[in-house]
């Protein structure tokens, strides 16, 4: 079966129709422009980050900064594959700790693009290595001197990832800090994932993007209170 634009459009249409028929709250989909958003109901209420502490530039050479998405652990609590985000974060941190390095979590409120999230986290990190995790689970390991789109490692197929993979991502990031040889992480690959999860991914991304607050930049994040 071929995955093309028409097919994705057809699936999108079917899903949206079903959502509306089922009496779900009216949503805006990715197909509508930003202008038409005005006045319409948001997908989730805007969370206020009033009083949040801006994350500082790190100086510890053992540090890996994990930059999580704007909706991480707040509006969204599970990845697109259904793994609780608390567990995801715990495993990434455990992977870093096992290699003897230190982790620090920040929430990125300027962007929801995972490449840029990871790069910003890397720039904040004392070691120059950072990890970006979107709330839907997509993850990137980045280094501060690289171009945004040439990262160290990218894990694009979030629905197929498990906790073991997140542990290994933490481990690999720590190994980059130590300058050790990094073994690529085995990932499963499924060409149908894109078709199956396109709509869900788009909706989750919109929820995340809605929560952006560029004035706040990156803030210290210790989980939802």
């Amino acid at each position, binding site marked *: 079966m071929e995955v093309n634009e028409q097919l994705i459009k057809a699936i999108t249409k079917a899903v949206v129709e079903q959502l509306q028929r089922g009496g779900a709250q009216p949503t805006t989909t990715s197909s509508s422009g930003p202008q038409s958003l005005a006045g319409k109901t948001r997908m989730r209420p805007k969370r206020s980050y009033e009083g949040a502490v801006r994350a500082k530039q790190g100086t510890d050479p053992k540090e890996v900064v994990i930059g999580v998405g704007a909706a991480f652990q707040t509006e969204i609590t599970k990845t697109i594959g259904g793994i609780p985000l608390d567990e995801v974060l715990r495993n990434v941190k455990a992977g870093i700790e096992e290699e003897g390095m230190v982790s620090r979590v920040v929430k990125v409120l300027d962007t929801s693009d995972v490449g840029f999230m990871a790069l910003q986290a890397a720039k904040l990190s004392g070691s120059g290595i950072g990890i970006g995790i979107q709330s839907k689970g997509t993850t990137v390991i980045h280094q501060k001197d690289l171009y945004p789109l040439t990262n160290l490692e990218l894990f694009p197929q979030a629905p197929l990832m498990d906790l073991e993979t997140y542990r290994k991502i933490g481990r690999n990031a720590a190994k980059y800090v130590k*300058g050790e040889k990094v073994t690529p992480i085995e990932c499963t690959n499924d060409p149908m994932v894109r078709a199956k999860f396109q709509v869900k991914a788009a909706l989750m991304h919109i929820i995340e993007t809605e929560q952006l607050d560029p004035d706040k930049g990156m803030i210290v994040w210790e989980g939802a209170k």
Partner: protein
Amino acid sequence: MKLIAGVDIGNSTTEVCIGAVGENGYFRFLSSASRMTTGTKGTLPNVLGIKAALEEAMDRIHQPLSALDLVRLNEAAPVIGDTAMETITETIITESSMIGHNPSTPAGAGEAVGELLFLENIWKGKPGVPYIVAAASKFSYEEVAARLNQHIPELDVRGLILQADEAVLVENRLSKKMPIVDEVRHISRVPEGKLAAIEVALPGTSIRMLSNPYGIATLLGLNAEETKSVTPIAKSLVGKRSAVVIRTPHGNIRENILPAGEIVFHGEKEANVNIDAGADKIMETLASAGEIRDIDGERDTNVGNMLRRIKTSMADVAKEHEGDSEIRITDILAVDTLAPVEIAGSLAGETCMEKAVGIAAMVKTQHLPMQKIAERLEQELHVKAVVAGVEAVMASLGAMTTPGTKLPLAILDMGGGSTDAAVLQPDGSVKTTHQAGAGELVSMLIQTELGLHSRTTAEQIKKYPMGKVESLFHMRLENGSMQFFEESIDPRYYGHVVLLAPGEMLKVEEDIPMEKILEVRRDAKRKVFVRNALRALEIVAPDHDLRKIPNVVLVGGSAEDFEIPEMLMEVLADYRIVCGRGNIRGVEGPRNAVATGLLLSYLG
């Protein structure tokens, strides 16, 4: 004007050279090319490779293949090389009694002794007894730490063995410092209730107690007899960062000496030598046997099977001979080596460096079916093809075109399968010899000693210098200097040892330090080429005296290597011999000597 091609079929490469002869005898070299040899040297499948090489060479001078007037093939030396490797010792663990491995991140430091206790049975532990706790991966690091912390006040827990890679995570959460070894894959095989000793070394050092038989005796309270039996354990733990040794009443580790067998030399004298005696002894015996007719191995032993395998693989060449189907090995080169072998019955997939011997054998046949190759070539190309000239003579002629040489001239032709030497005297007489062992044996030694999965990687390690990518913008080269980059190196190479092939970097996938690769690479080259060069030159030298050879020209594929010529130069300098990499026709480097010689001999 006539276009003539010289073709040299070697064990691994086929080289061609094209020249033009004018009416007045005026002669000029036009182009050359080299290709992989297709099939075993001296068999009909070679024709494919020859055609490809000829096409490439003719392409360079923008001429069709049909423009050729004559193809001259060398009378290839009827020797074919092959290599094999066999381990001669084997370590077997009966009942699990040791774990010695290198998890990348053990935790804590020091040594500890105690009775083994599984985490699920920790409530059974008695106060006052020292314990070493083993935890399976079904317990998360938080659970392991919580349970231990709960029991530590009343139990004497000295050390910890984990199945998961979580030693540091558990250590950070424990209320008491202790050595922790993790990544023990088969933890269910750990015998509960037995006495165990555990040791973790500080970063950058290796264990001291458990890699020493007396250290194990001290920790586990062994008597002299038992200490003797743990020596193989201590041996296999040398250089590890962490280890566990468990005392089982009946279990032991044996170093089995495999029935390696004897090599039998049929020469002027009959001689035999046990392969356990090591490479030096084997080579000594070989020399004492005089001229060799055939070499055999004892039946149903490792070496016997090995030599038979070599002979069988040569069978296809033999089939093309009329009336001579017998394959005889006329020379071998034995080299001592070590091979990492997974220990039978191990708990964490540990390996042990076992003694092994690598052998290159050379098979001499009566006559290679070169005439048949020439006929086939003539049919396919519609160009006259003749077999002309003996390989060694042609190589000498070709080597003479190197600037700065004079007669008498010795050549050392270091190819893939064999190392050949010849001395060309001013009166035109030539003395030649063929020795087993060359580039392919070096590749095999590198592959086995480093435990590489692919031969290709081993060949690349042999061919190219290395560097380690230390950051995205700099690399440390094997000679210690640094190289910086303006643009970032591809992140895929980060932290890897890379081989600096022309125009690209090749990753070494295996996690082996650069220093180790360097040592193994140089050692393998020295073991094979230095030994073979001396051996071969001694045979062809007048009165077998190396000092009577004034100059040696290195030719063949292995002479192109970036360090072998220097190694030989160092050794031969002791004999006051001028030795260096050939430069055929002043342009070709050490390649193409035979093909060039074939053209020169046409002129007479």
